[in-house]
């Protein structure tokens, strides 16, 4: 993992992606310091970019329809997306990896049953699944987490299963078997670490999708509960005004697209360097 991260220096595309991600990570970590206003403070509705607020502070990107500073909301919104997307992705991996390992390593009935379950979930169009889950359970943070996990885990399951099917035939796995290691140890210690390369690439791509998904849910009004800023939600709240006040919509769009782009580019760069060596 560290090797491929170090190698990312070899890929321009990957470096650009990493830079975009690190930029947003920096923004998220220091949000309290760099945001000029509290993200939910309703100060001055409909201010245009560059306008001065009541106490002389400047709304660099303007304010939204109920007077909140767009820049501060984008800055604080990065926190939400960078906590939520990785957390959701992590949960999906936490479910998908053991299932995939078990199916790929043990094969037989375990594989048949798990694959069947996975295929059923996969046969739902993703957003259909989200919409039904969220509309049935309600749009809380935990439900979005559940929905993302539920919808992403089968995809991860498939990848891990494929990798495990391949890696289980390696002689070091055979060696571990011949010394009577437990299946659990073989899966976690012998197989999993060697699957990390493709999984890291997949995780980057998946993070991009999860960010899009959280954005789409926000856009459909099924997203994270307000008022804390959520990029997709910001776009949804303001897009009816986009023609008169494009600043309300365009900046969150740039923010979300740049972060997704960052993950996609990083994934591409990682794949490039991993293929090279």
């Amino acid at each position, binding site marked *: 993992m560290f090797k491929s991260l170090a190698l990312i220096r070899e890929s321009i595309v990957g470096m650009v992606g990493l830079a975009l991600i690190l930029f947003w990570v920096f923004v998220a970590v220091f949000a309290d310091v760099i945001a000029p206003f509290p993200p939910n403070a309703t100060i001055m509705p409909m201010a245009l970019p560059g306008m001065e607020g009541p106490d002389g502070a400047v709304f660099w990107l303007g304010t939204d329809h109920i007077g909140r500073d767009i820049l501060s909301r984008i800055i604080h919104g990065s926190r939400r997306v960078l906590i939520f997307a990785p957390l959701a992705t992590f949960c999906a991996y936490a479910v998908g990896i053991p299932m995939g390992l078990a199916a790929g390593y043990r094969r037989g009935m375990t594989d048949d049953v798990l694959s069947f379950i996975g295929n059923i979930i996969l046969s739902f169009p993703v957003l259909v699944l989200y919409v039904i889950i969220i509309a049935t359970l309600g749009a809380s943070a935990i439900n979005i987490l559940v929905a993302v996990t539920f919808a992403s885990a089968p995809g991860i399951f498939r990848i891990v299963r494929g990798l495990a099917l391949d890696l289980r035939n390696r*002689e*070091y796995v055979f060696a571990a078997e*011949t*010394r009577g290691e437990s299946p659990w140890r073989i899966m976690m210690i012998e197989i999993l670490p*060697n699957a990390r390369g493709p999984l890291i690439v997949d995780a980057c791509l998946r993070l991009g999708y999860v960010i899009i998904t959280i954005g789409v849910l926000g856009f459909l009004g099924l997203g994270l509960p307000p008022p804390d800023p959520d990029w997709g939600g910001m776009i949804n709240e303001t897009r009816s005004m986009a023609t008169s006040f494009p600043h309300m919509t365009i900046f969150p769009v740039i923010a979300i697209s740049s972060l997704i782009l960052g993950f996609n580019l990083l994934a591409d760069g990682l794949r490039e360097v991993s293929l090279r060596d």
Partner: protein
Amino acid sequence: MTGNGSSRHDKYDGPILECKNLSISYFTRAGEIPAVVDFNLTLNQGDSVGLVGESGCGKSTVAMAIMQYLGNNGGIVGGQVIYKGRDLATLSEEELRQLRGNEIAMVYQEPMASLNPSMTLGRQLMEVPLYHEHVSEAEAAKRARKILADVNLPDPDRVMSSYPHQISGGQQQRVVIAMALLSNPSLLLLDEPTTALDVTVEAGIVELIAEIAKKFNTSMIYISHNLGLILATCGRVNVMYSGVVVEEGAVDVVFDHMRHPYTKGLFNAIPLPSADKTARPLVAIRGQLPLPHERPAGCYFGPRCDFFQAGRCDVPAHGSTLAMSSVDGRPGHEVRCARWSEIDWDAHKPEGVSGEETPMGDEVLSITNMRKYYELHDNSIAAMIKGKRVRYVKANESISFVAHESETVAIVGESGCGKSTFAKVLMGLETATDGEVLFNGDDVSSQSVQKRSPKQVGSMQMVFQNPFDTLNPSHSVGSQLARVIKKFGVETDKDRIENRVMELLDLVKLPRDFARRRPRQLSGGQKQRVGIARAFAGNPAMVVADEPVSALDVSVQAAVTGLLMDIQREFRTTLLFISHDLSLVRYLADRVVVMYLGSIMEQGTTDEVFAPPYHPYTEALLSAVPIADTSIVKKRIILEGNLPSVMNPPKGCPFHTRCPRKIGHICETKTPPFAEDGEGHIISCHIPMDELRKVDPVIVQADSKSDQPAAE
């Protein structure tokens, strides 16, 4: 095959191909990497030249340079490739296209990968005349069919309409050869054409190539790492090392009177029939092949050479390396060595890895009538209707043999012979369907590894085939060894485990700081050593070595083999050596078990098995093994047909479908009996033992030759 093709050959009577001072480099992020330096070659009409060398010596690069196909990052940086007087570098893409596949054709290492999986073979063959000679479809099909018959493929029509995966590996390679011959090329490049094939199949291909050379008078460049194959196919040979040719000349001259220390080293490292593990052990070449950008100045072989002299060998005389010089009195025999004339080969007795013969001890392993069947569930509708949903695959059938303490028993066979299943049953990863497997007195046939005690598990361990696969790339060498020590309960205390890891590294002659290294920092041979250390961590009574050196280069093979035998001798371990390499088996085994399609064909002491009476399969196998010794005369036995599928084995004697000595109906219906010729030498054949005894030996030393291949 005649027509405009051969008229083309008549126009030109200079050399077909000349490589002049050819230097080829790859350009990577790390900079320019010279792959081949100062390569010279002249090939006349009808000549066949072998390029031989270990992996990474640049032999395939030469072939690709001749084809002018070096990819995006490779290029010729010096010298010329001249084909029939034309410098290929000056040709346009279109002119090159007209040469490729038409005048210069190539046969590749992996036939399966070289054929388009989604196109019928007929179409792939027909493309050659269609695009080069613009003949009609019908004519192209006719020619394709004819050439398929020429390469001895039965039923060319079926092959024409097949896809690559539908025919066997040997047949695929025949198709690739047919494709190369379709336009009756002037020059044929063969890049390790048999490496991926089983040994009996290889023999057929080699014979075909020799036939072609004779029949079409085609000039050939034959690339191989196998000296025996070169001997069987070529007139001249170029021995390459690290991007340069170190010695060249006529094959028998070079093989009998080699002058370069590297060539000499190679021959000392391969298990020729003359080698013997106690009397004339194999000698490994010390050190490792230098990476292309770490080559020493002067002689590239210098650091590994026993005759290295500072100030002479490390002075570049020709570019960065040395120049070739002609060996006196032998025109065409050249060598790239500064001291070739000074070395007294008779006085040089290299230290081989040898030891005394150790007496055999008690029986450690005793297998009686072991059988392993797999259930195969047939989910097809037809099977459901018939109610025959379960079929049995007989992976192992009636296996019986014994192994003693400190004995080396070799199990020999080609792919699908059931060696791997057998190993799995022994190790407890599978349980036997039937029969008895007594290990140290305990029946372990139905004891899975989880049910065995750590001591039991530790006392039977395995060394694996693939060095790139044998160690887990994610964990350090030390931690992997430590885990085994802990698992087998050899040591429990942390410090003592570490001590034991160091001891193990010492045992396999690796530096102690390798404990902290990751497997990818190790060479193939080093990884195999770690693999051996791992197998011996639990002080095993028996080690199963599954082709432990087959993926290694010749020079490394000898070292690893020697090490394995050394340790075995030291611990009086029983070694079960699984291999397809009969030369190696002959060299190190005490007893040999020959398997075919899950059954034992023949077993006995090494001498018994390698001498008549033979089982017909053993006989064919022995005949098929290429031997790099000009003094050896072999009987030629080429097996017909394909290896049958394990899923659907022949009834009666499993070998009857390919047996050249099949006696009749009985072979097809009755399982042959185990006939005994002397104590322990058992042959499973319907042919009476007396008949079998009358067979001549397959391998004989020709009287005219000296019995020491390397001496002069």
